[in-house]
């Protein structure tokens, strides 16, 4: 089957699946940022937690995605079959790069700059907002980029637990031994990952402060 022809005949379905896929990635990455950024900042203030927290995030990262989905399904509130479980899993995967990069970004800020800031009477909050975050922004955005790109790929596996998205074509293609169908799902997912990588890379270069 010709891919162009397939898309022409199933345009509504394709757009729907792309929408679901974007939804899964957008929601999970947003939540991962909303949770990961404060956690990363907290780690710079409480270095003793660094080992356990980053260790835990590392362990989560090593759980194969299908297994993680499997573990989550029986859990009340966050589990079950469908998009919610998938989002929870994707958030967990997205946390590590964001927490780690927030932490390394902030701890990488020149200590003299932070001492000068404190010495001039900046509050912790001012130091964070005016010094730490702007100077760490490039590294933090790189973490967000990694989390997003990884989640675009991992979200395809979410189709196994009824979360929809482009993985639906891939799983259907695997079940039917139909390469065109697999490609129909894999190709837009790959393009989506490339687009996310490119756009966030651009944001990184535009927004982040970098020495010449």
């Amino acid at each position, binding site marked *: 089957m010709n891919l162009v022809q397939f898309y022409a005949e199933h345009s509504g379905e394709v757009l729907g699946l792309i929408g679901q896929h974007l939804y899964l990635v957008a929601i999970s990455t947003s939540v991962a940022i909303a949770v990961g950024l404060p956690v990363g900042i907290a780690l710079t203030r409480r270095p003793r937690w660094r080992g356990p927290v980053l260790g835990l995030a590392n362990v989560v990262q090593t759980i194969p995605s*299908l297994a993680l989905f499997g573990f989550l*399904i029986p859990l009340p509130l966050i589990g079950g*079959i469908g998009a919610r479980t998938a989002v929870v899993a994707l958030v967990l995967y997205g946390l590590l790069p964001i927490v780690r990069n927030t932490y390394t970004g902030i701890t990488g800020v020149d200590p003299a700059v932070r001492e000068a800031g404190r010495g001039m009477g900046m509050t912790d909050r001012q130091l964070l907002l005016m010094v730490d975050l702007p100077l760490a922004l490039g590294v933090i955005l790189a973490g967000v980029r990694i989390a997003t790109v990884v989640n675009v790929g991992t979200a395809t596996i979410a189709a*196994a637990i009824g979360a929809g998205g482009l993985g639906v074509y891939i*799983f259907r293609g695997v079940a*039917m031994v*139909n390469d065109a169908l697999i490609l129909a799902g894999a190709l837009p997912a790959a393009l989506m990952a490339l687009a996310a990588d490119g756009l966030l890379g651009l944001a990184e270069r535009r927004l982040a402060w970098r020495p010449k």
Partner: protein
Amino acid sequence: MRGGRADGRTGGRWLAVAGTALLLAAACGRRDRVVVGAKNFTESDLLAEIVAQQIERRTHLPVERRLHLGGTFVCHEAITSGRIALYVEYTGTAYTAVLKRPPPPIAGAESVYATVVRDYAQRFGLVWGKPFGFDNTFAITVRRRDAERYGLRRISDLARVAPRWKAGFGYEFLERADGFRGLARAYGLAFAAPPTAMDLGLTYRALADGNVDVIAGNSTDGQIEALDLVALEDDRHYFPPYQAAPVMRAGLLRLHPAIGPALDELAGKISDADMRRLNAEADVRHRDIATLARDWLHAALP
């Protein structure tokens, strides 16, 4: 835990796929090794194990198991390309999904069997063994309390509630010729939204947890009783008969003629009740498949 277990297996399947190339390359050198495959659900694994043990004890040939490979089409691809030599298929599945024939006339179990035997030999060079005896049809399944509340006994009763209900199916059922689309047409089922597609092994959990309201299981599945579910009657005879029987490469029987009689011993020996019990032992009580197969063989064919 059913979901977790099925997931683990599916994960394992990918590893298996990755490893398959290497192992097969090694296996090619040893032509006396009989490779038995299975589809990705418990009953298929159980039957493959029974077949494998029967071959081992009657012919003393080494048997290699490739269980939980994938769906119908994955297994069909594997056997036609020679990656496996044998697996257990269902006549109705072969008839509609693989041969893509229109639904057969009512209750023609023998004619369906005769057709697949003839067409498989002609088109694929594959040989069907004798049916094991039971018939495992698709079981359109709902929760018992819903069945009682809405008075659902037959699939045709489902049309009333469908517009408010959510369906969940495995990927294969959504695509097969004897799958969801034909079913919806035959019974006039119009669900609120397109069915949720998910891994086949998760459908029972999704139904029991209330994520979906109706699924397509198998009539011999142990979970139907264990999870307090009800299978609706196929009152319009949409589904063809699904007799389980071994499918083999013709070359296998030429190379090892003893396999034929060994498998013939199994003909008609597994009843619907036997199969349901074995599935329940494996899926609900989590008993080891190899042990279940050995115990059953010793009892049925001493």
